[in-house]
């Protein structure tokens, strides 16, 4: 009698555990689906300097805002729901406030988790994104004028961005040309572009660059 009772309680305990595990899996999958759909919206988010690649960043960052508070400008903020970055994570919108490329990179040094590289040697090693001239039709230099604001405001002009001569409809023009190896993605050019929406914009590297070429067999050239 007693042993059968014990068997019963053991069986119900097993059932309980199985039920709990099932529910945990189901809940886990639903939460994971939500996290994934939310993270897809982040493809355009620009992170502070020294940030880990996006997937690693989302695991390491605890959303503490120490980087935001360390920035002497109003550049960084923690994302709200519906912002372009995962809720609670730090990002910036260069058209509003670019990164001023502080020499000592206080934001990255303040990060306790390593989501930002605390040992980043110089702000010039930062890789927040890459500037891309997206609005050829509106860019004043393409129309033959000599605006060149983007080039003149770039903190590392000459390296990150230069004017290269070109020709459109037989007219000589000076094309603002970004050199992705040096551009940090600080967004100063985007901030100051005079066209309605910026004609030059900072994009995360995987969106902004074409990637290395491939040969006809589809292998990397």
């Amino acid at each position, binding site marked *: 009698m007693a042993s059968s009772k014990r068997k019963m309680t053991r069986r119900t305990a097993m059932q309980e555990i199985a039920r*709990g*595990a099932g*529910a*945990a*899996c*189901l*809940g*886990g*999958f639903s*939460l*994971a689906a*939500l*996290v*994934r759909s*939310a*993270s897809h919206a982040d493809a355009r988010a620009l992170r502070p300097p020294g940030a880990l690649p996006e*997937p*690693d960043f*989302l*695991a*390491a*960052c*605890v*959303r*503490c*805002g*120490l980087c*935001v*508070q*360390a920035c002497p400008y109003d550049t960084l*903020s*923690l994302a*709200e*729901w*519906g912002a372009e970055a*995962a*809720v*609670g994570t730090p990002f910036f919108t260069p058209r509003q406030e670019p990164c001023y490329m502080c020499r000592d990179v206080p934001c990255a040094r*303040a*990060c*306790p*988790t*390593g989501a930002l590289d*605390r040992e980043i040697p110089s702000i010039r090693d930062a890789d927040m994104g890459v500037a891309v001239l997206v609005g050829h039709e509106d860019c004043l230099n393409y129309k033959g004028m000599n605006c060149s604001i983007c080039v003149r405001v770039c903190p590392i002009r000459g390296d990150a961005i230069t004017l290269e001569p070109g020709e459109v409809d037989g007219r000589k023009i000076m094309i603002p040309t970004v050199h992705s190896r040096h551009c940090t993605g600080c967004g100063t050019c985007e901030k100051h572009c005079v066209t309605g929406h910026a004609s030059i914009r900072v994009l995360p590297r995987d969106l902004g660059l074409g990637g290395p070429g491939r040969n006809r067999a589809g292998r990397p050239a």
Partner: protein
Amino acid sequence: MIGPLISESRRLSLGKRGWLRSHKWWLLRRFSQITLLGLFMLGPWAGIWIVRGNFAASDIAGLVVLADPYIVVQGIFGGAIHAWPVLSGAAVITLAYLVLGGRAYCGWVCPVNIVTDTAFWLREKTGLTRDRKLDRRSRLVILAGTLFASALTGAVAWEFVNPVSLLQRALISGIGFGWSIILAVFLLDLFVSRRAWCSHLCPVGAFYGLIGRGALVRVSATRRSACTDCGACFNICPEPHVIVPALKGRGSPLILSGDCQNCGGCIDACPVDVFQISTRRPWLQTGAAE
């Protein structure tokens, strides 16, 4: 004047022991919760930087880093390799709650506690009695789910919805949209079920509850022989089940369950001073040990 505002469960104690003694631990808790939030808000709102960061991780006067172990653990499940400061910060906080009782976080730190306590109080005052039964172990299941989801997505999964983070961030950084989820928790606690969020669903509380299972600081029903069965402690307690073995059992009078928030509600509410704050002393082989 404030008479009608006072919760029923404190009335007996109020009559016998006066206002202050029937609200002492409640006052201390609110003081602690508001002071901690205030310290974090001083920087961004008043430019006085004593502490930086928020409840997820903070820098205390440039001396120590503190960090929330639950968020760090989710990160680890997500495959993060953390830098040293956040790991040591999480270890310090874990140690503190190993001593103080894990869910002291709930009673003494978490700002959502003020929201859900208010909902509980309003239930009583408005006579709302609807109480959909929830299993209090749901939170352990949700906790496991958040760790699983972190592993699946490689992200700190619960932070995408965590009302605790949303509320403290809304207050510290002054941002708006998270309020909707706080409102949802408030309405859930008000209309759906008694203490629905904190005592049944919140995985943060569940996590700290696990840490606090062997905690040293514990409430004790020391004078349980004086108990008059008035029920005041059961009414005020967010986790009434923890009281039963200590008050009605024959073993240790200490409230041993990790679910206890060390909030001192029972000490406030008891008209005959049955309860007091005490400590578990595993190193002494007295009856008070487990």
